[in-house]
């Protein structure tokens, strides 16, 4: 049984294609061609993919209704409207905004990120090189020697934050503000220090990190 997604798209061709593609990736998709019954259909779904231009109720209205009924349900807007205004309006309630035409791989990647962020982890551990990460149990095991790796509170928060944005590069400001919740102060070395200790615990060779990758001049990334 795959993860249940609600997909609202009026265009038959695109709808059929996305439906098939996501089905092929192991998701269970409910596809609606308009937003009239979206709220009732959303029950039991883990994520909603929503088109903006819909007959009858438009996507923004449907999205707002869904968010009101299920505040924790992630919504991904999938729209042919690309203006900044549309994006900003959409992102007032939606968690992500993808414009058409899109590559199905990108859609799948974004769905994965959103599910991860909303805490819909699978019971299977996430495999990162030599690490097994049990996200549900907040447990990290070194697969080389079977030992569990214990992290301090902040180290764990930083690592989780990076995992939640798996594959994305995060700048030091983004990580700091995401973890500490305060605005980043220039020249603050706290984050660098934490990442150094984190690497010492996680990496096989802390001098050549493989898990937490440094993207020179930009930030850090954890790749799957």
């Amino acid at each position: 049984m795959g993860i249940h997604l609600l997909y609202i798209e009026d265009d038959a061709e695109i709808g059929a294609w996305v439906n098939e593609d996501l089905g092929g990736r192991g998701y269970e998709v409910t596809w609606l061609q308009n937003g009239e019954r979206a709220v009732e259909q959303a029950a039991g779904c883990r994520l909603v993919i929503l088109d903006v231009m819909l007959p009858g109720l438009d996507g923004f209205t449907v999205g707002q209704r869904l968010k009101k009924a299920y505040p924790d349900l992630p919504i991904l807007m999938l729209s042919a409207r690309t203006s900044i205004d549309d994006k900003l309006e959409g992102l007032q309630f939606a968690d992500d905004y993808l414009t058409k035409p899109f590559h199905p791989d990108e859609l799948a990647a974004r769905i994965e990120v959103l599910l991860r962020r909303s805490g819909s982890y699978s019971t299977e551990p996430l495999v990162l090189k030599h690490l097994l990460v049990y996200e549900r149990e907040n447990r990290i095991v070194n697969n080389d020697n079977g030992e569990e790796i214990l992290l301090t509170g902040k180290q764990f928060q930083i690592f989780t934050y990076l995992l939640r944005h798996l594959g994305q590069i995060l700048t030091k400001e983004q990580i700091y503000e995401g973890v500490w919740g305060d605005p980043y102060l220039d020249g603050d070395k706290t984050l660098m220090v934490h990442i150094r200790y984190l690497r010492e615990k996680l990496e096989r060779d802390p001098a050549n990190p493989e898990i937490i990758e440094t993207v020179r001049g930009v930030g850090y990334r954890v790749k799957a």
Partner: protein
Amino acid sequence: MKKEKLPKSRFRGSLLSRYLIIIVIALLFIPVVFPASLVGYQFVQSIIVGNISPEPEAKNDPYTTMRLEDMWHREAKRLKGNTPEQIDARIGELHAAYSKVDMFWVDAKSRVRQPGTSKLKLPQTWEAADAVAYMKRYREATQQFSVIAFIGDDQKLKQGFMVMQVSRSELRTGGYEMSARTTMIFFGIILLMFLLFIAVSWMFFVNMRRRLLRLQSAMTVQDGSNLPDPILIKKTDEIGQLEHAFNGMVVRLGSSQRREREEEELRKRLIANLSHDLRTPLTVIRSHVYSLQKEQLSDKGRQLLKLTETKLGDLSGLIDNLLSYNLLTSGKYTLEPERCDVLRIVRESAAAWYPLWEKEGFEADIDLPEEPLFWIIDPQWFRRILDNLFQNAVRHARSGQYIGLHARALPGGQTAILVSDKGQGMEASSGDKGAGIGLAIVGFLAREMGLVMDVGSSSQGTDILIYQAAGSEPGLKLTNKV
């Protein structure tokens, strides 16, 4: 300057006519003011002052010039034919009655005779020369009031003449002469009239000023978006007409604003729909391309599909830029500048693009200083500029396989952001002209935010310097490096 023809307005009820009425009344009043003051004086005198403090026995006082003169001539007439002794006696009686008045008389033989009580020092005889000297001394002297009467009213001096004199200080002004208090009241009333005129004029202008200020405050709208409220018109004069015109303007402004909003709405909707209608088939084509890629294909077929996919991406970007440019240049986007760290925005934007660069095999050479660089920009717009530049690099500088992001110190002490690639340059732009509209957007956004985009292009690559236009002209600058 050409003289504008003013609109005709009715004279009646206009400010001009009202002011003229005030002036005319004031002018007409001047001849009326003085008699009116007298009447007013009489009124004040009899009703108010007279009752409170009556002037001391004005009616019965014998020491008034008129009465004294009257009395003297009467006595002179009555003494006609009397003997000098009888005349002496009568003048003595008179002197006793009018103790403050000096009296003497000169008989037919020019001998001066005076009553024994008189203190006057006079010559024994009174010749014509003495009379002249007397005239000079007393008559012209204002301190003395004197009356000369011919006895028996005889001009030929058969009986001589009689003289009386009295110090003016002993006299009371009466009849045609007015006391100081009367003068004060009289001028007080005139002053009051003038004050009244000034007050009326003052009120006229104060009222006008108040109405003008009201109009001004009505025109000054506090919150930017709203229109001023129409004014309640109370009068039909010039200011009333101005208020009327103002109300008309408010109505017209409101309708034009509404029309503009509707137009803007329409345009936005049109473009959103256009975008949707163009992108939907693109998405469908893309879905088919994607499905085709999963089929068994020859190498040639796969290559063609790859090319199709690339062109689809270009087309989508082109649609986006075209529509954005349309919206941008028609001023339908609002610029919201704030002070922000541009390096942070550049880093975040690079982070979003990095995976694509990686996938395309680009070398990303990013070296930005740690210290923040603050510019006053709209972060959304700045991201848009960066997106366009990065997009261009991926599409048109593919051959260089390089993207560089650096900070450069300019001669003026400013810091610029340098975006560079190692493509074939703008001229040879890999055959497609997609860069044109993209650069136009970038140039427009930069100009609106007061940034300079200095684009230097050669066959070895393109360098784009972005910096704040301190004094220089903002916008896009294209130079071809040799």
